[in-house]
């Protein structure tokens, strides 16, 4: 795996995989690769945190291993488990072949009897060190966070029956958080930090053109104008960048050439995901007002 040698190379490499990163994010990714420290990305849902890890894996030509956190996730689901059925089968076969029971017991705790979970796969990969994405860390419990602290600081795992396994090469670790709760300071201290905000108008238009170059420029401008306008409104869930891309894909699939009240009404579910938000946009004058503003603004 060849790692980029400058911030510019990181930005260019990500752009080659259709991810437009600014200088600040490029610097954070570059330092994360150089200093071999995990990168913690925080921001509202749908601003491109997970997409960064995917683009980074593509850029480095290594696999992406994703650990999706949830309430109640534990060490066993993240690291390893003993494959009990296989061990039982092994014992049965050894018994049938008349082997010494003591020898059988010793042969039970080998790496081949482990069910490898994402963290194990990342620390002991078969090829190049992968990109490990620990997604939505804020949804996990404090105990799991403390466990991660141990793994991410030493990049080693202790299996009582086998011993300590240390990573020969450290994986690239990206942690994401939607900020539903604060990640503990101890974990933050071990990571580089980057806050991802909603993109500005120019940046969002650039991203849309990068991701969907075949789309009519006037339609993409209208879409970005509309979404930027929605972000100024008091909504339950402000649409993120991923919603913009989903909506653009939906409009393209429908063969739409320009936004109209009818089209917006039919496809609003791609952008707004809460009933109250859709209801608040339900009044026809709201959509027509936004479309009017776009038309007046030259969109």
């Amino acid at each position, binding site marked *: 795996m060849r790692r980029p040698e*400058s*911030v510019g190379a990181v930005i260019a490499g990500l752009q080659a995989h259709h991810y437009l990163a600014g*200088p*600040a994010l*490029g*610097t*954070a990714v*570059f*330092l994360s690769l*150089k*200093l071999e420290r995990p990168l*913690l990305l*925080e921001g509202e849902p749908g601003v491109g945190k997970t997409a960064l890890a995917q683009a980074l894996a593509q850029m480095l030509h290594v696999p992406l291993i994703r650990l999706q956190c949830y309430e109640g996730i534990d060490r066993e689901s993240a690291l390893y488990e003993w494959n009990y059925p296989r061990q039982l089968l092994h014992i049965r076969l050894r018994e049938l072949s008349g082997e010494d029971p003591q020898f059988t017991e010793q042969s039970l705790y080998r790496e081949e009897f482990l069910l490898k979970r994402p963290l194990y796969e990342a620390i002991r990969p078969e090829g190049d060190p992968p990109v490990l994405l620990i997604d939505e860390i804020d949804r996990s419990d404090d105990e799991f966070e403390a466990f991660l602290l141990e793994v991410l600081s030493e990049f080693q795992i202790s299996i009582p029956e086998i011993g300590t396994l240390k990573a020969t090469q450290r994986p690239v670790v990206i942690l994401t958080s*939607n*900020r*539903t*709760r*604060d990640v503990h*300071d101890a974990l*933050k*201290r071990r990571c*580089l*930090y*980057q*806050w991802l905000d909603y993109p500005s108008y120019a940046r969002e238009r650039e991203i849309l053109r990068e991701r969907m170059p075949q789309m009519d420029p006037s339609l993409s401008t209208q879409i970005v104008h509309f979404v930027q306008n929605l972000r*100024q409104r*008091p909504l339950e869930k402000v649409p993120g960048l991923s919603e913009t891309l989903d909506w653009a894909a939906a409009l393209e699939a429908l063969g739409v050439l320009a936004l109209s009240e009818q089209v917006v009404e039919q496809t609003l579910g791609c952008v707004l995901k809460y009933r109250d938000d859709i209801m608040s946009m339900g009044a026809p004058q709201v959509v027509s007002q936004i479309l009017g503003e776009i038309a007046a603004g030259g969109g």
Partner: protein
Amino acid sequence: MEDRAAENLWILARALRTLGFSLSIQDAVLAARSVALTQDLSLTGVHDVLAALWVSSHEQRVLFDQAYAYFASLLAGALDSNIPQGAGPWLSGLGLPQSGRTWVSWIDTAKSSQFRTSDRTVYSHSGRASSEEVLAGSQSGHSPAELPWVRRLDSLPAHQVRGYRRQDVRRGKLWNLSRVLRRNRGRAEITALWRQKRRNTLRPSLFLWDASRSMDGFLSMYFQFLHRLVHTKNAVEVWTFSTRLTDVTAELRTVDPKQAYRSVFEKARDLRGGTLLASVAEALTARTGNRLSTKSDIVLITDGYDAGSPEDLANILSKMGRRSHRLIWWNPWLGRKGYEIATPAGRILAKHCDRVDASGTLADCVAAWQRLA
């Protein structure tokens, strides 16, 4: 990297420490090494490196940007000031506001008099303006729903308590023993399991909000917080007290903040009076009756200045502590420079409450609420 540049980084790091950043000499060394790695010594290049290494939250980022702008201006000689070598306080003034942002002025004694009889919600409190107040005070047309503390509060999960009822699930820690036995009846061994998990219920939280004269400067801030809190999915009850006890939960449930503000202060007639915490707490235990269970959290929002007898207060607090899950004291002055709990009532509160949390700003309130989860 040159020694002088490294020294400047260390000065910035020390100054940031006075603003609440947790930075050691290793962080400064790592920053110097990282700047050498990127080879970008421009202002924005160094800024991006330091932001990635030293910042650990969105709020810190806002503060860091401003401190860095100030630091850069000082280095460029744009500000007429001498930098004392290795000293921190030179950043404490934090001037140089960014364009488009305005610092809100908090209520000082002179200004507050004109708001005392007013029904408008004032986004302010004593002390330095926090980032959310900066946003609220700016004329950018932000609605309250867009304020960081509101977004943060809304995003917190509801406070729950484990219920005794169970529900069937595919994977759970508990067995539905009766079903397992029933379904496997007549078989030689148990071949199938049915699992359950406990069903959670909302944890009742009861706020006792001191609205006496000594808490005058914090009234509007607590109103904002509690008004928003009762509109979340939590089981929250709010009582104000000064010399009497008033249940204002229904008034706070009014959606329009102005209307709610008016209703609360129309109903609570004893605002800005003295504080009789012991008699109020006794009245509360009598009025809440069986609703106050050992699963309830009781939050006392007060500054600890009380006119009643300390012995009575100790007795009633001890009783409340036993009858509730947790008794928490939210103290608006806690954590401020030079403040210590000195009053007899304050000491009794600190002794009998399970925890004392700082609640001097809206961000503190949200953090204290999160800690209760």
